[in-house]
């Protein structure tokens, strides 16, 4: 709060006090500026090695190459991107409708008692470590998929994506619920006044009115799915592979290696050339830029929407 402190000469140690007040202010400012420092050091340090990499590997080759084989010094990002894309798409198919439906239920239908059970329950989903989700996928979901007759490999993109989807449900539902509950009640009353049923008000008034908030939660969730690491490291396999467009369904049952999993593998591999090691930073920088842009976009949309109703 910007209330000015009272005049200096009230108490006994004016000069020392003013100096100290200034000192506290600057120390605290330093703390706040630390976040900028973190961002800058991420960009600078990642870029430093990524530039080394790009002087040796043509960026065009990197971003359009269809093969990623460190042992043969072939670095094409597309196989890793297709793994990431698959995880994102499948988990979005699971999480987005589920999350929005959950938000609708929590914001429009749930009694207070139901909400007091379900909301913390969903928060717990977000608090489970991702390595645990990965283990769920590998040890329990994949065998389950096999028993119900799907031809999945031990490492497959489907079970990993299912767990990523479940993991991001709370993110979609809580942000969408915020958006829905900040839709003014007058809009709902107007709907009821027109003779609409609760269902019609919910789907025809509340959800469209909260659309930008819901959309921003989608983008945030996608960014989370893109950056998710441990689930795919544990359960999605370690083979970079291009998307097979001729047989889309078969894609689901194979193992892929998303960008995050590739980073972990490169870093923990025993013998990696210097060039291979710097490719880690090129991939990391790409991942950082993608997620950063998505987060920024989501913030923009959410901010615009917030202005509309407050």
């Amino acid at each position: 709060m910007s209330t000015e402190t009272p005049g200096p000469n009230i108490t006994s140690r004016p000069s020392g006090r003013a100096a100290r007040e200034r000192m506290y202010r600057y120390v605290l400012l330093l703390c706040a500026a630390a976040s900028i420092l973190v961002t800058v050091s991420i960009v600078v340090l990642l870029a430093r090695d990524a530039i080394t990499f790009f002087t040796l590997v043509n960026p065009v080759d990197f971003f359009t190459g269809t093969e990623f084989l460190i042992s043969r010094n072939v670095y094409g990002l597309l196989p890793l991107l297709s793994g990431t894309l698959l995880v994102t798409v499948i988990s979005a198919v699971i999480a987005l409708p589920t999350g929005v439906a959950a938000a609708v239920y929590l914001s429009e239908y749930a009694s207070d008692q139901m909400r007091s059970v379900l909301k913390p329950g969903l928060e717990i989903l977000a608090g489970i470590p991702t390595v645990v989700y990965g283990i769920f996928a590998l040890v329990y979901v994949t065998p389950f998929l096999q028993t119900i007759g799907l031809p999945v490999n031990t490492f497959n993109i489907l079970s990993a994506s299912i767990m990523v989807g479940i993991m991001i449900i709370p993110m979609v539902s809580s942000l969408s619920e915020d958006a829905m509950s900040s839709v003014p009640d007058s809009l709902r009353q107007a709907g009821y006044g027109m003779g609409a049923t609760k269902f019609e008000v919910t789907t025809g008034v509340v959800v469209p009115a909260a659309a930008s908030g819901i959309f921003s939660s989608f983008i945030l969730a996608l960014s989370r799915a893109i950056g998710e690491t441990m689930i795919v490291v544990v359960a999605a396999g370690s083979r970079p592979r291009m998307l097979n467009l001729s047989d889309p369904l078969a894609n689901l049952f194979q193992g892929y290696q998303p960008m995050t999993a590739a980073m972990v593998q490169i870093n923990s591999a025993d013998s990696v050339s210097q060039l291979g090691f710097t490719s880690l930073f090129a991939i990391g920088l790409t991942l950082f830029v993608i997620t950063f842009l998505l987060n920024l976009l989501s913030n923009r949309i959410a901010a615009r929407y917030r202005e509309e109703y407050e």
Partner: protein
Amino acid sequence: MATREPETGWHGENSDVNHLRGRAFEATCLAATAFGLVSVLLLLLFVANDAFRPFSADAGWLATYAATVLVPLAALAVYYYRLDEPAGEVAYVTSGLPVVGLLLTGGFAVLFIELLSVLEWFALLISLVVAGGLIVAHGRLRPKAALERLAVVLLAPIITVFGLPPTRFNWFVTDAAAALGLDFGLYYRVISLREAIMMLPFVPTDWVMLLLTLVLPVAGAAGWFVEQRRESRRDGLAVVGLTAAVAVLGVVAGPLLGIGTDVWLLIVTFAVLPLGVYVEGVLRRGEGVRGLAFPVAAVLGVVVGSVVTGALGFAGPDPWLDWGFLTSATSRTAADAGIYPSMVGSVMMIIVIVLTTFPVGVGAAIYLEEYAPSQGLMGKFVTLIEINIGNLAGVPSVVYGLLGLALFIRVLQWPQGSVIVAGLAVGLLILPIVIISAQEAIRSVPDSFRQASYGMGATRWQTIRQVVLPEALPGILTGTILALGRAIGETAPLLMIGAAASVRLAPNSFFDVASMMPRQIFSWSSELDPSFRHGVLAAGVITLLAVLLVMNATAIVIRNRYQRTG
């Protein structure tokens, strides 16, 4: 125009289709809400089954414990839920407090066993107290010398804790002393007070030092709390006296129970003392006293159950998650594998995070909420910081790992996979979360409090320290505990900075290579042996989740208390 009769209604009222559609929609939404919860619950049941293997026990064993523990506790829970809600909360807290206390005990035991000896702790604390005393004394003696005090504030802790490294300054002092005919032997470095204490020929025994430096301060804090609450100095002193008495009793009782005096002191400090204060408060208020039956019934049930199963000769289950698992190192054979060294690693990582991230995060939140201008160039900068913090919260954890690798290992050349690197990398990851939650807590302090403080002539910093922070503390604590829960489970940064896959020995310095719980669990997940994959792995997962559950429950309890009073 006559208004319509209400019975005729409007066109859609009697149409079943609309209702059906609405109901179906509601049911679908409910199912969607439950989908994630139910599937994770099922998976958790599978893991728990793998970890505890309850069905490997005799049917008689299960039946006995069901009768002595499960049925009474379930009956009590239903009773509290239906008829006596305050008692339910008392039951919840009295069962939870000992668990949290034991967890803290474990954390401190790790600290004393693996990291510091009790003597080092004692010396460190005494040195810090002396440093604090110097600062206060300087403030009293020379209240106007602000710059001088800055030097004292910085130098006093450094000299008392670390001593002075070999510098020109030392030579200068030594030369000057030699010119006066004295010999301090300061050529290399000035020894710190901490080191001086550790070199003393006679030191008190461990338990005396623990009593002085840990039990009494904590008891003093509890006594102060009771004194404030009840406005009775006598009650506060009684708390301190009783705690000290029970603690001293441990000199005899600890070895008799086979837990040692030190562990007894820790248990008294972190489990018995808070539980005692809470139970006494419940009894005195007379609210929800029936809730105390719950922990009593639990303990009685376990005792009776073990007597009965022992007498009838029922064999218990053979769980993967047992005492041996918690106290031994990992191993190539599944039956011997344990999680202990990585638990120590996690505890030490948390210490690093608490010491580094927490002050910076809270400091940043204070600046953004209390100082930050909203106009001008500085205002733009502050907006940039705010947006940036929001975005940092969304940066993938693996990128933070990469940052840790690049910054701490490649630029600063710190040892790869060491506790300090892990703590700092994960600390940076949770920094935005700490800042955002602390900001929310500070924002919720009413502005009238600040105005009142300014009206009394307080400066901004005095207002923050004595009015805003105490009010916001529960909120900040809640947020921090949740963030620490997140930190314990993070794995990707640990992989990137090269935390050890499996270590046989627990780390005993912050620069040692260590493993942390999630890292250890991850390395078990790549074992193909089914007894690893379904047994050891499940036990590790349950251990990790149990720690998280306790932390989250603590945060929720703090939040609930705070919301009620605030």
